[in-house]
């Protein structure tokens, strides 16, 4: 044992050199495909998700163009169906959920002070599967076989009788891809948070963003199986003639809606809870004080995560459910306003008397507070059955959920990108461009979507590809469409800012904002091993409370990728463990998995023959290779 090199007694440069030799990815293209560094994969994940945001945004602009005047001629009904389905599916499955998980993949290991995420190869696999799933959906769309059944794909519309061809199968299989990717990341984050926290970071010293990601991951793990079940049953109905959703043969149409929304409603919180964590983080840094009511905040996060599973039926109020069910779900839908409201008040209390620094991330937080409260109000409105029966499937609902999703998740996300950009790239984003973009996005957003409330109240239904000139909707639609140009301009500025700042931005240094959490205790961007020595934590805001040097743990081996495992509650050090090395197998396994999944759209035999290469790839992935990493 004495032959193993340890980091005790080594000084900075020699230590870094030793760490670099075991942690660095291979150079060149091969390194790009084999890396398991959570930062490289997180960055990739974020960039890909933003690409899908841009694509989904283009679709939104096309729809706004089509609806700008009555009897628009830009899109036909079939194209319009595909476009609104693609817009919803892209934004929900390929942008919002992945981007939140991606930020978690990048930040959680840094925030808990460890060197890599748990199961890093699974992490790489997850990214590739996500990428291929997104490509499947978009290539199908470009081939005129994009799904056209709405992002929720209700049967019987998506069932065998009314959705001939392969369009609905593409949707269902894209879901499978994103499920695999999301579940993989959720498991990694739970394990990272539970077992890899820096020594001393007991649960009550965990940053709120990490708490948020932990709750989100549990919600993912509990919610995704419902949609796995639903989409698999749908594919079986369509491909091999099962009758899950065929009432004439004892199946049940409503079963689909229950399964879908049992996943679909928590999905909203999968997007929203991380955003809340971002808001708390940014707010605390820019007010320069710990968040007010830390324990209350954590409990609110957990109870949102739990309540998320008790609301799904409010998407189904017009399906003729028993009165008792409707009342119950009205009550539970309103109950979620309690923990959300609690958080709002904690944020307000944090702001109270503080002199927040009005940098761009903080501006986005304010935009969030304003917009999200409005969206929450309309949420309480549609939670009541009589009103919902009127408003269901109208533009009011479109306005409502864009207020909660864009206001509640995209604004905090944009703030978070500005906030953590220095960590990601080592450079600051331009403040001036950022303010312009903020103004355009925030203003443009409200101008586009506020009128939709009114359009909904005036009776304009959702998902119509055009409307007649006699109807009173033309004016507001034109206004909304014109404002969409402002919103798009804002996003363009944001992208331009990120692009330019990544190259020419001002250098940031390790901790440009004077923030309290561990990710700022290392260089920007962090080296592949994150921390040269694992930090030891003694409070919620380690960088504020220990202004000099952080305490560190020593004694780790240098001949393998080694990190510290700690206990779940108190984060007492328990063991040193190795972290897997780079490998090409996650990438190859993702390819064969994709082949199997796509093939199974066309033939059930794909599951039999296609699983052979998958098994082979997995065996090779896990084959012991006698490297130091393989020692127990």
């Amino acid at each position, binding site marked *: 044992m004495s032959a193993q090199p340890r980091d005790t007694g080594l000084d900075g440069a020699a230590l870094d050199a030793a760490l670099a030799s075991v942690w660095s990815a291979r150079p060149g293209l091969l390194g790009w495909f084999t890396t398991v560094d959570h930062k490289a994969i997180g960055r990739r994940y974020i960039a890909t998700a933003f690409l899908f945001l841009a694509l989904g945004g283009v679709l939104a602009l096309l729809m706004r163009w089509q609806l700008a005047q009555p009897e628009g001629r830009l899109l*036909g009904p079939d194209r319009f169906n595909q476009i609104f389905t693609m817009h919803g599916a892209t934004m929900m499955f390929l942008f919002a959920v992945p981007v939140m998980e991606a930020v978690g993949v990048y930040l959680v290991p840094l925030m808990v002070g460890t060197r890599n995420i748990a199961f890093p190869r699974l992490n790489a696999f997850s990214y590739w599967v996500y990428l291929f799933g997104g490509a499947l959906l978009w290539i199908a769309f470009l081939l005129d076989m994009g799904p056209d059944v709405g992002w929720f794909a209700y049967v019987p519309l998506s*069932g065998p009788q009314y959705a001939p061809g392969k369009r609905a199968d593409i949707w269902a299989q894209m879901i499978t891809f994103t499920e695999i990717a999301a579940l993989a990341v959720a498991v990694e984050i739970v394990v990272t948070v539970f077992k890899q926290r820096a020594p001393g970071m007991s649960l009550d010293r965990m940053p709120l963003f990490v708490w948020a990601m932990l709750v989100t991951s549990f919600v993912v793990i509990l919610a995704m199986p419902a949609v796995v079940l639903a989409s698999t049953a749908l594919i079986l109905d369509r491909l091999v003639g099962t009758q899950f959703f065929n*009432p004439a043969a004892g199946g049940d149409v409503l079963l689909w809606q229950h399964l879908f929304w049992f996943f679909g409603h928590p999905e909203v919180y999968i997007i929203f809870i991380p955003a809340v964590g971002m808001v708390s983080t940014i707010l605390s840094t820019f007010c320069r004080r710990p968040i007010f009511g830390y324990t209350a905040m954590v409990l609110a996060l957990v109870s949102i995560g739990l309540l998320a599973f008790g609301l799904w039926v409010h998407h189904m109020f017009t399906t003729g459910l028993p009165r008792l069910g409707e009342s119950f779900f009205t009550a539970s839908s309103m109950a979620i306003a309690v923990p959300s409201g609690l958080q709002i008040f904690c944020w307000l209390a944090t702001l109270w008397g503080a002199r927040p620094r009005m940098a761009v991330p903080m501006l986005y937080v304010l935009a969030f507070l304003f917009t999200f409260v409005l969206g929450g109000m309309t949420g309480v409105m549609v939670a009541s059955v009589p009103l919902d029966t009127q408003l269901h499937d109208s533009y009011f609902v479109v306005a409502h959920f864009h207020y909660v999703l864009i206001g509640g998740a995209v604004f905090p996300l944009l703030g978070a990108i500005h906030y953590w950009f220095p960590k990601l790239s080592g450079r600051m984003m331009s403040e001036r461009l950022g303010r312009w973009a903020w103004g355009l996005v925030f203003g443009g957003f409200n101008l586009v979507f506020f009128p939709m409330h009114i359009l909904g109240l005036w009776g304009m239904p959702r998902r119509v590809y055009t409307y007649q000139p006699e109807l009173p909707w033309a004016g507001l639609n034109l206004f909304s469409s014109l404002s969409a140009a402002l919103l798009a301009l804002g996003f363009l500025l944001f992208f331009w800012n990120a692009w330019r700042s990544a190259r020419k931005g001002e250098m940031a240094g390790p901790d440009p904002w004077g923030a309290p959490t561990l990710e700022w205790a290392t260089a920007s961007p962090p080296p592949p091993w994150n921390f040269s020595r694992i930090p030891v934590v003694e409070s919620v805001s380690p960088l504020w409370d220990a202004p000099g040097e952080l305490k560190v743990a020593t004694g780790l081996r240098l001949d393998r990728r080694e990190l510290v495992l700690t206990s779940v509650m108190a984060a007492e050090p328990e063991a040193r463990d190795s972290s897997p090395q780079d490998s090409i197998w996650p990438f190859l396994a993702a390819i064969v998995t994709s082949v199997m999944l796509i093939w199974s759209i066309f033939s059930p035999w794909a599951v039999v023959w296609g699983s052979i290469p998958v098994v082979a790839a997995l065996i090779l992935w896990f084959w012991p290779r006698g490297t130091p990493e393989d020692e127990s």
Partner: protein
Amino acid sequence: MRRMLLLALAVPLLQGCKRETRDLRPDPPVAAALDGVAILPIGIGGRPPEVYFALGKPYRTNAYQLSEGKRLYAWFGCPQCHGQGEGTARGPALLDGWWNYGPGLETIYLSVRDGRPGGMPAFRSRLTNDQLWQLAGYVQQLGAYSGGAAAPSRDDAPPTRPAENRAPARFAPLEP
């Protein structure tokens, strides 16, 4: 180089996926031209109009068109006399491979459009031209000996037979 490869991949895919396009309502001139079947004087056999070829023979190769045909088949009372294809006392079977008037798509189109002397009513005044073609496509597929690469699927109805898309697919080019 990479671009060329992508192109080489994209072209066959683009070709293949015409069977997914969905023409909800053909342009009026196209719809009018669809009626221009050249008929032999005996009313059997002939040639579909040029636009049918220009459209890419959608009524046999496009799952959407076929499933529309299937729906019209139920809606317009064909099962009254033809059952689910097996025939009844009032009308002949359509899936026994025997066609009184020949197996061509244009002949089937004419049977439905103009009716036949043995008791087949004319549907000319009840359906549009493209709907007649959809019906003809569906009926021809019903009687085909091998499955096509495009097919409608089962109905949400009590299952009486395997769904059309469960037949082994045949990728050979179809005659008109």
